[in-house]
């Protein structure tokens, strides 16, 4: 990624903290939620014209710290200075008045409204009753040209791609004449190409005098765009360093207290020689799941999967890369029998499972880690034991003819807790009180104990910290090594590239290409994820939407 390295150099040229006092200073910030300490005595400062990365694992307190600066939370102790003056920021409005804006990970836009309407919402109009859209549009076009953030002011936001919506959010902030911009995990849903264009836009913003705080957990991004980096761990400040004075593995050590970069990337293709052999065998072994010309509707009853064909073999991890919303959920659901198929056929281990009921498909050998563990994978008001029998409550030994067998339920729960090292708040407690990683272990425990033939893992590590992510990857690899066909659908391209044996790219409900991991390169995959075959350019990436 040459653009990134260019950006890096430019970023450092602008960086000069000695040039006057810091723009923003946060001193000794402490913030708690109940017993959870989100930030403890954290100091943070932002220099004029720099991109300052705020790095940490999920739950390290990055977003909390910035939400305090943006007036969403109030700290228990600590002081904030903006432009050298004590600032009492009680609400986002106060933050805006201090020239601070934040773009959240999940956009806060109104999909049926136009870009302009979304940008000017909440602002006073010079005309008293009517919206002053023409002036607003002019200003939006100006901003868009100035910073290289391409948007169409009259487009309906609901029709825009994620990248375009993000540009709208950024322009919405800039429209309010701010000069301090906070971006929360801005790249989590972008293709590599969209990411590059974002980085270029950020660079042009700092070149023109803005200052940016960039929240992320990706080391590569820190190295690519920032001039300084502040690392948080469990709500505690680990340090602030110049990006030029550090490297990815030092940062990783600061972030998690140990070096994990090598471990994660070392898993590609297996890690051990034994599993390499198995992986090699997998290439020759037969298909355990065949998807033949499958078509299906999405939730809006629009034909979304079009003639999709895919073959999953025994003992392999097939990673599906793609930008969110290109048919991953629909694909997982048709395999699991949760979505009706309009045309085509699905064959699982020699039997046509097309349009069988979810229970029949599960009984035949499917395990499925759903993308939304909180709302699909689990029932939060249930105990662990109840959640573990959600898929098998109807059969022995978990129940008799009429009644549930609570003793067996408890025994099974204890076994899964031991086997999967689940940290619980008690057998009788609702799982609601458990952490994300442990919740996913409960789902994993239930699904893997089915002894499946096929395992669908949809965003299995989303929102989890590095430790839990690593554990889940190991479990997926273990399943693969024992001969299960693992279909990994993930928005995290790094994840797909690091543990898959083969990689397929999904775009607009179609498989664009399938390749062995050894032959895959990020650039090509990125282009395919954006729907481009062979050509570069960002216009095509938004093509996802023009169809709707």
């Amino acid at each position, binding site marked *: 990624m040459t653009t990134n390295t260019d950006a890096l150099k430019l970023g450092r040229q602008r960086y000069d903290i000695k040039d006057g006092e810091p723009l923003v200073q946060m001193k000794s910030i402490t913030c708690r939620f109940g017993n959870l300490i989100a930030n403890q005595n954290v100091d943070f400062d932002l220099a004029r014209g720099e991109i300052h990365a705020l790095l940490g694992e999920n739950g390290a307190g990055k977003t909390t710290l910035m939400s305090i600066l943006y007036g969403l939370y109030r700290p228990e*102790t600590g002081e904030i200075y903006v432009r050298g003056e004590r600032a009492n920021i009680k609400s986002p409005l106060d933050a805006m008045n201090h020239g601070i804006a934040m773009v959240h990970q999940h956009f806060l836009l109104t999909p049926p409204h136009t870009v302009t309407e979304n940008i000017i919402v909440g602002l006073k109009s010079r005309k008293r009753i009517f919206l002053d859209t023409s002036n607003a549009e002019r200003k939006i076009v100006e901003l868009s040209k100035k910073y290289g953030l391409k948007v169409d002011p009259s487009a309906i936001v609901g029709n825009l791609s994620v990248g375009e919506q993000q540009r709208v959010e950024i322009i919405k902030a800039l429209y309010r004449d701010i000069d301090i911009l906070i971006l929360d995990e801005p790249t989590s849903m972008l293709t590599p190409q969209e990411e590059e264009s974002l980085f270029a836009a950020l660079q042009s913003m700092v070149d023109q005098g803005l200052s940016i705080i960039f929240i992320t957990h990706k080391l590569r991004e820190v190295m690519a765009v920032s001039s300084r980096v502040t690392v948080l761990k469990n709500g505690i400040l680990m340090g602030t360093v110049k990006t030029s004075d550090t490297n990815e593995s030092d940062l990783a050590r600061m972030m998690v207290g140990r070096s994990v970069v090598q471990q994660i990337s070392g898993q590609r293709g297996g890690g051990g020689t034994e599993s390499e052999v198995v992986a090699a065998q997998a290439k020759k072994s037969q298909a355990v799941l065949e998807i033949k010309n499958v078509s299906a509707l999405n939730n809006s009853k629009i034909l979304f999967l079009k003639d999709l064909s895919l073959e999953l073999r025994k003992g392999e991890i097939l990673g599906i890369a793609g930008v969110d919303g290109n048919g991953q959920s629909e694909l997982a659901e048709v395999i699991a029998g949760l979505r009706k198929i309009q045309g085509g056929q699905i064959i699982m281990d020699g039997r046509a499972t097309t349009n069988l009921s979810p229970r029949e498909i599960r009984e035949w050998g499917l395990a499925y880690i759903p993308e939304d563990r909180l709302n699909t994978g689990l029932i939060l008001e249930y105990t662990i034991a109840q959640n573990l029998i959600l898929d098998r409550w109807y059969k022995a030994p978990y129940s008799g003819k009429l009644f549930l067998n609570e003793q067996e339920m408890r025994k099974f729960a204890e076994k899964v807790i031991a086997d999967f090292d689940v940290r619980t708040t008690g057998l009788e407690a609702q799982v609601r009180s458990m952490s994300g990683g442990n919740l996913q272990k409960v789902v994993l425990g239930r699904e893997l104990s089915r002894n499946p033939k096929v395992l669908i893992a949809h965003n299995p590590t989303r929102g989890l910290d590095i430790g839990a992510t690593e554990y889940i990857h190991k479990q997926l690899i273990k399943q693969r090594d024992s001969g299960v066909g693992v279909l990994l659908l993930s928005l995290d391209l790094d994840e797909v590239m690091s543990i898959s044996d083969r990689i397929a790219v999904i775009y607009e409900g179609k498989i664009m290409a399938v390749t062995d991991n050894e032959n895959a390169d990020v650039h090509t995959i990125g282009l395919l994820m954006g729907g481009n075959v062979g050509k570069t350019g960002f216009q095509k990436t938004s093509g996802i939407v023009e169809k709707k």
Partner: protein
Amino acid sequence: MKVITLQRRSINFKSFIPFLSAGLAFVVGAIILYAAGVDPINAYQIMLKGAFGSIRGIADTLVKTTSLLLVGLAVAVAFKCRIWNIGAEGQLYMGALGAALIGITAIGAIPGLALIAVIAVGFAFGGSFGLIPAALKVKFGVNEIIVTVLLNFVVLLFISYLLHGPIKAPGFNPYTPEIFPASQLPIILPHTHLHAGIIIAALAAIAVYILLWKTKIGFEIRSVGANIKAARYAGMNVAKSTFVVMGVSGGLAGVAGAILVSGVQLQLLEGISPGYGFIGVIIALLGRQHPVGVAVVAFFFAALMSGSQVMYRTLGIPSAFADTLQALVLIFVLIGELFTRWKIKTKIIKESGSSAISVK
């Protein structure tokens, strides 16, 4: 710096807060009574005496508890599967119709069998009527709230038609002949109206508890109610749960109707229920969809109803006052729920950057 926060309570206040809330509702009720020119303390005394002051009063309260408990359970079962059955009133009338049809025909004269038939047919009539909204919901995705509400009117008009024609007793009044003695529920407390229906209602509460919390189908029902996406994903049968739940819910309301015919009125007439089916919604909500909670609330509401009847007879306070009190109780208890789980806390925090906060 002053910070106002909502804090989760550590101690479990759940048991007494609802009673405190209900007490506050009575305080507001007292203000209304006072404004109407009645001495509230006197009025409440009469009410309390009316509900509990005599054997007859207690018996009357228990008779009303029977109906309220059954409809409360009916609505609660459906709510547990997140199905909003607002049609308990109609299902109750269908059950009453079924009971009356048995009670005035030949089967109703056979001792032993007659009572079983009356209750069973009441359940069947109410239950099958509950299956209509279930079928529409499963097959066409029709919202069950609309269907159940509207079916109430259909039933009331249908019964009105029957009572003015086909099953009308000789004479001018629109009601059926009296049911055979073999179809009447026995009085279990001599010289009062207290009939064996209260036993049936208590058994129903136990049965509902076992059904929902101990059986396989109950687990499926509660899972569908708690999280339909998760239930579907895990391979559960949402349609089956919907049918079972609406059958049981309608059936329980039907039994309430059958008991009104065979234990209270001994015939079917218009207005046999003073809106029990609708009060059942409130009871299910306040009772947290749990049989024990529903039983407690049903008893409380029954006392309120029988007490306010006495209050009406003695002081001439309209019985609509009982409705007002019920509504006040609902509002206060729901607000009280919030403070059961959360408390408002104001903290004064020193503004210095000192690090006095320790871990945990």
